[in-house]
């Protein structure tokens, strides 16, 4: 880990990061208005009132010791961490080892290969407001390289009914200019040479379930 950002009060030494690379990709119509009562409604019998409170807050997520992972995404790299004592490796990263016998040993950064394997999967036909137009989404939990844990991300390049357990994957990054340092800068795709298995009863069932989703998403345009 980067020791230079540790606060050393006794010596009066505080090396604060100086942020020189700044980017904003905030939609133009989003404005921080703070807290405001912006309207109300009253029922026809005069017994019930609803009031509308608007609250829009910009948060700063300080990635601190995890920063290398997110900066790595901008550079098209997947960084993991490894415990120098027990050798366990993780993506998502841990800055200290999870093994109690390692007594919170600080971990070291390791660049991970851009391949993975599906551990489990689902096909989303509904999601949060910000993702509705992208439905249906194939979400997989996949193990990258020798990681001890699985990471969630989307699988592209395959029909929803063709995703399979244990299928080999490659990690594909967005074009450099579109990356913003978040996990959606990359997604999974089937590894080169992988072919889906023949259709079966479950695949037919999934088709039946996702077809209305495709139709519904078109109505959102």
């Amino acid at each position, binding site marked *: 880990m980067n020791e230079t950002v540790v606060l050393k009060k006794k010596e009066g030494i505080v090396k604060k990061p100086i942020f020189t690379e700044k980017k904003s990709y905030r939609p133009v119509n989003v404005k921080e208005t703070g807290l405001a009562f912006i309207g109300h409604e009253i029922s026809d019998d005069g017994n019930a009132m609803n009031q509308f409170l608007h*609250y829009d807050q910009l948060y700063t*997520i300080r990635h601190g010791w995890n920063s290398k992972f997110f900066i790595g995404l901008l550079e098209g790299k997947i960084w993991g961490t490894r415990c120098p004592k027990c050798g366990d490796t*993780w993506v998502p990263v841990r800055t200290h080892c999870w*093994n109690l016998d390692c007594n919170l040993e600080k971990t070291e950064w390791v660049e991970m290969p851009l391949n993975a394997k599906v551990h489990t999967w689902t096909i989303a*036909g509904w*999601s949060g407001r910000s993702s509705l137009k992208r439905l249906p989404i194939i979400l997989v939990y996949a193990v990258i390289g020798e990681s001890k844990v699985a990471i969630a991300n989307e699988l592209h390049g395959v029909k*929803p009914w063709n995703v399979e357990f244990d299928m080999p994957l490659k990690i594909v990054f967005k074009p450099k200019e579109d990356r913003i340092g978040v996990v959606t800068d990359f997604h999974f795709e089937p590894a080169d040479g992988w072919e889906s298995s023949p259709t079966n009863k479950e695949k037919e069932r999934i088709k039946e379930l996702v077809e209305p989703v495709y139709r519904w998403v078109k109505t959102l345009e």
Partner: protein
Amino acid sequence: MSRKVCIVGGATTPFDYGPTGFESIEGGAAECIRETRKDIPEFSMRDIDLMIYSHFSVHFGHQLCSEWIIHDHLGLVGVPHYRVENGGNTGGSALYAAALAVMSGHHDVVGVVGWETMDSVSQSQGSEFIAMASDIRYELMVGGIYPIYYAAMANKWMKDNNVTEEDVATISAKNRNNAMDNPKAQWYRNEHKYITVEDVMNSRLISYPIKKYDCCLMSRGVAFVLVCSEEYAKKVNPDGYVTIDGMGLSSCTIRAGDRLNFPGWTERYGPGYPEMTEFGACRNAADRAYKMAGIENPLKEIDFGEIHDAFSTSEAQIYKALYLTDENNIAQFLRDKTTHMYGEIPMNPGGGLMGYGHPVGATGLMSMIECFYQLSGMIPKKHLSKKTEVPDPECGIVNSHAGTGTSISNFIIRRV
């Protein structure tokens, strides 16, 4: 246990999305306590010596420290109070805190009030707020809502255990149909219909293999439970009080993918458990609760349960985590309808989260209240009929569940 912990009463407001009839949280809390006082008139507000408040999200509550509004509305200035928050297991954790307070001997009569006002935002915004209880740095923008994480876990679990969509759909139909006998239940108050496995199978895809009717409801609601010493219980409700004979609280990873190979699980249960598919925290909390209550064969010794059916699939996963069945028998366990009203161990006769509703901070309390009603013989008074009354129960289990299985509590409750 150093001192016996009892429950003597409790009530909820109706659960709903939109108007419930008790739309201010402090008004709802007051009405829950008034209903409890009708059931046990010897209980006086002056008896309460600690209040614990159970509330999940300020995002839904749009008010920091909203428990302070409730507390002084109840006239309880000077009585100590604090809030417990632990995701979907907020209610279970608040009850755990109340039980510890009584067990320690430091408090005698502890009121627990839980609530959530999830209808203060749209359903899709509410789903995003709940997803903020995932690790937002890694998971908020991939998947984005809890049903997707649960579906990914359930999909592999169902394959590994030979459980089908139809098998878990029996749970969705069971809980909603049970709620049709419960006038405070959100399903009764809104959709108000009996449904079949076919209806569940035909409901819209949320995230394969989970459909709309496999999911619980987003709700507004308030609940109150009165936890106390046995001395007090004998004074106010000598014929109807129940005892918390066992309780366990346990934890698991925030990101479901991190529970593969976690050393803390491997050393407890061996390699490969809980994988990404089992609820390790549920099993661990059950181990603690069963040991404390002296339960050796849960299927035989527990008569019924009120458990956290956030999804039909998770109720099935919970059966296994609670040792009611195993990987060789779970599919048949479901096909035999073992947990239906006429089965060996009815689960969620009150309707559960899919039928009664899931106003997060009130949910674990609702489960405890339904369990209490069953054990104290109050179902004919609280439900519409005896259809959802468990015949002559002596022991119930209450389960409350957070995150993707990140915090789970289990309580063994017995009739005295």
